[in-house]
């Protein structure tokens, strides 16, 4: 007797079949004439496989953008009686701005939650070194809908010591220190090693030690209008985070990022 497929195996295989069809490897749909070879990225897009059919990538610009704006795409279960794909909704946004100054690089990250309205704005000052490592930040949180609660967090990184205003003990950081939101900008650079180890600050509040950022095989992702988008794939994993995938188009623009419940889809660049 043949073992029955588990539901998860079925969904994974279905997603692979759809991808293969869309890429022209199975004779069900019009093929992408550009060819073969790129593996599927089933895991990378698993949390949003139902959202992809409505995703239209942002067109790249001639020069590297200074602003990336993402929609927060939330996983909301699966349509088990229909397509078997994920249900996803937009539950917020993130805008990341990068500016180069004479002696520093500055970032501003504006993160908005819409389901329970709140906003966190963090401004970072970074070194002009290879990875643009973090030196200091100031992060401002506020609730919306008339709630009074608001607060400010700050951080300073000197030597190997990271001091956060919200904690009494400094963190000893041995690796380059970034905010997780710098990574899309980092990945847009053309020459990066295939594996990078960093420590991340997450919106000025959590410290994620020992994060591995790894280049993975390229992938073809089926998106809106039956198109298939060839993507470069990077991943990040380490303590304090579920595995994160970054999917960049052929120009190097980070179009999609997926974690667990939350994923991010590029809305605009500037």
């Amino acid at each position, binding site marked *: 007797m043949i073992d029955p497929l588990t539901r*998860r195996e079925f969904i994974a295989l279905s997603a692979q079949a759809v991808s293969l069809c869309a890429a022209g490897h199975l004779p069900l749909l019009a093929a992408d004439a550009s060819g073969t070879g790129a593996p599927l990225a089933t895991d990378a897009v698993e949390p949003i496989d139902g959202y992809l059919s409505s995703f239209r990538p942002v067109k790249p610009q001639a020069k590297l953008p200074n602003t990336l704006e993402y929609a927060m795409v939330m996983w909301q279960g699966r349509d*088990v009686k229909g397509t078997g794909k994920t249900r996803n909704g937009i539950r917020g946004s993130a805008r990341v701005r990068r500016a180069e100054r004479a002696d520093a690089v500055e970032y501003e990250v504006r993160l908005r939650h819409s389901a329970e309205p709140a906003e966190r704005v963090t401004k970072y000052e970074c070194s002009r070194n290879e990875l643009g490592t973090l030196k200091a930040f100031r992060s401002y949180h506020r609730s919306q809908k008339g709630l009074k*609660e608001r*607060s400010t967090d700050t951080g300073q990184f000197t030597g190997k010591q990271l001091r956060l205003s919200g904690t009494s003990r400094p963190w000893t950081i041995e690796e380059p220190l970034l905010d997780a939101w710098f990574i899309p900008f980092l990945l847009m650079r053309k020459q990066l090693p295939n594996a990078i180890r960093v420590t991340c600050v997450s919106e000025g509040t959590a410290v994620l030690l020992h994060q591995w950022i790894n280049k993975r095989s390229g992938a073809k992702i089926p998106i809106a209008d039956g198109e298939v988008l060839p993507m470069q794939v990077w991943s990040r994993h380490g303590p304090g985070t*579920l595995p994160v995938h970054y999917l960049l188009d052929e120009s190097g623009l980070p179009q999609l990022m997926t974690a667990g419940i939350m994923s991010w889809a590029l809305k605009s660049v500037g």
Partner: protein
Amino acid sequence: MPTPNIVFVHVDQMHHRAISALGNKHVKTPGFDTLMREGMHLSRVHASNPVCCPARSSWWTGRMSCEHRVIVNGVPMEHGMEDVATWLRSKAGYENIYAGKWHVPGRSVDRCFKVIRRGSGQGEYTDAVVTDTAVAYLRRRKPGKPLLMSVGLLNPQDCCYNAGALGGIGKYGYAASIRQELPPLPENFKVEQRQRRPSVEGWSDRDWQYYRYCYFRQVEMVDAQVARLYEAVRKMPDADNTLFLFASDHGDGLGYHGHTGKGYLEDEALRVPAIAVWPGRIKAGSKSDVLASQIDFAATFCDLAGVPQLPNTPIARSLLPALIDQKQEWRDHVVAENGIEVVIRDDRHKSYFDEKKGLHRLFDMQDDPLETRNLATGIDPAAVKERHWGWFRKYAGTVQLSKSDDGLKAAMNREHRGRMSTRPAGKIRKGVERLERVRRWYPKVAAGEIGVERD
């Protein structure tokens, strides 16, 4: 001394050993480690019923599931139950503040607390925002009225979605990329798989390991938020007069006995992490092994506030003497239930009772803490069986069983209309069946109409 503040921070579905300070090498929890270093680890706290709504209803009411009626998620609490938040506000003038997940059906959080932030259903989305709001409140608060603040964080409960009944999420294919980093399976992984969920049938060992890997990351995610809350409490002007209590509503299978999730009475789901910090009152770095239940939290809060205990709570005991190292007589066993089985746990043994089978499982938790060798059919533990049976009879005769069915039909209709895509329907119907079982079973036990063992 002014009436103490109470800050009760709770997480969802955290295994009682998922703390690095307890020697767990697969998780890094600097926040929980700090609490352990600066406070008391309550090492033997048990859920009253290891599911979200029942457990939460118990810690606010000091009553067991069979009394408040919340025996599975979604069954509304019986009308007229007192809750400790409202009690403390009316009896001792507490300012009650709430942020995050509540999940006590039939009792509005707004009736008990001023809500500064509600939580959604996923920790990855909501925990940082809930913490932001709670931290902001704590920073601006000025000492005045005694504070009862409760913050409900969700992770590591997001693990439910990784092993979801309706398809799951979790990037399991990624496991191959991080083989060396995956935690091993528990020693009793394959011992007994009597309640394995359909959603995990067919998982490979590596899938299980990856589930555990992700679970520990979700614990680390919530650890960072608990640490922020704790730091904010420490910086309050009246921090020295504030009890900080951390706990979880229940544990998670985490591969023990081949389980994921909760709802059964094995220790992986039943026991919860609990740490209390109170500078100058609770000895830093201490540990208490008292056999405690979540119903004791309400009793502890009443004791701290200097108000009478909640009515009809004869089983609940205040943990305050244990926390401040006062000698006291303590109970010699603890009871938990889920509407299918009842567990009696004493210092050494743990027995499982079933309506039809009587005492059908018995474990020596000292020699066999992973519950792998059932002694129920042996000859030796006859005295243990009789003792545990006596405690069950006493329990069944002490609890005031919920009798009312008001609101159950409406709850079933609501569940039917609002069925979620992430979980199967029919939970409340199952809850009603369990209530009916308990109402039939416990009185017979109390009256001695049935014996310890049956065919």
